[in-house]
């Protein structure tokens, strides 16, 4: 965290002023910074390999729904997309410098106070403009990391945001990040052979204008796709163990 604050203070803040300010500039800088981080981890942790679906890399103007298994998930997604934003826990907005960066870079606070009244409309309009400009908005609808690989309850918020913005949803399935950076620890597990994968498992195009449209049905549809994928992955792992 302190290392990150150091980088923010001596790289991001000066860059922001030199570049004349701007959300997109900060997002791109953050993207390059984390891209460099993962290039470094590939060199330093050769036992971990990355398999990124090209269809994931090509996503633009998309609301991306992901399963969440490690702290690495959001930064891995930032490293893939030059223009990206997401919902961030409100507590991070109170951290000096880091909070400044989050606001300037267009991240959306999860706090109810920031998602009420005028602030909520402002945030939604910002997300809409960000998507229209080719940016991605990625969200972990479970809200927190899974400790056992199973899905927690999905929050409806992102599905309402998708409807507000009138865009489709791309479902991305992440595996392996929890083996490299386990929940409950603050160190990298560099000794284990591991594969980190990101796969586009479905795209949902809801008919928002349909008379019988409901957010719940879109949420259920997305959840079923993830549950099926998790069942398939567990089935494959079982076969490997038995074989």
């Amino acid at each position: 965290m302190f290392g990150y604050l150091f980088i923010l203070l001596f790289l991001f803040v000066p860059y922001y002023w030199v570049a004349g300010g701007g959300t997109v500039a900060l997002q791109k800088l953050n993207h390059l910074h984390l891209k460099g981080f993962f290039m470094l981890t590939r060199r330093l942790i050769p036992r971990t390999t990355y398999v990124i679906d090209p269809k994931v890399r090509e996503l633009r103007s998309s609301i991306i729904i992901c399963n969440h298994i490690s702290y690495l998930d959001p930064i891995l997604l930032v490293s893939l997309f030059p223009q990206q934003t997401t919902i961030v826990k409100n507590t991070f907005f109170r951290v000096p410098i880091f909070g400044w960066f989050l606001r300037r870079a267009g991240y959306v606070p999860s706090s109810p106070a920031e998602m009420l009244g005028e602030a909520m409309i402002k945030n939604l309009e910002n997300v809409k403009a960000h998507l229209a400009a080719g940016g991605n908005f990625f969200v972990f609808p479970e809200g927190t990391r899974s400790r056992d690989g199973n899905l927690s309850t999905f929050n409806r918020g992102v599905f309402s945001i998708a409807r507000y913005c009138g865009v489709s949803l791309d479902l991305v399935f992440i595996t392996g990040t929890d083996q490299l950076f386990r929940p409950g620890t603050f160190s990298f597990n560099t000794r284990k052979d591991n594969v980190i994968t990101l796969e586009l498992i479905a795209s949902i195009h809801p008919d928002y204008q349909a008379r019988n449209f409901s957010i719940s049905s879109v949420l259920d549809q997305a959840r079923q796709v993830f549950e099926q994928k998790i069942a398939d992955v567990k089935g494959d792992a079982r076969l490997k163990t038995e074989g």
Partner: protein
Amino acid sequence: MTRQDIEREVRDIFLRAFEIENPEMDVNLREAYGFDSIDAIELLLEIEKFLDSELTQEEKKQAMDIRTMKQIIDYIEVLAAKRKTLPEKNK
């Protein structure tokens, strides 16, 4: 469009989108039914569909202060009067 038409539509939206059956007119929706800010956004989008017209940012912001069914119906009545036209499907 009469006030009764609007009320009927709003009740239908509440049943369909929020699974709330016949909400009372004057109760605070947040306290009585847990109607939150995400639900408010959903309601706005349903209102747009009903009026067959996109709401302005200012109109959306005004909606964020609404707390009761009666206020919702008043709000739609004002919007409909401003637009002065009835969507065909709701006639």
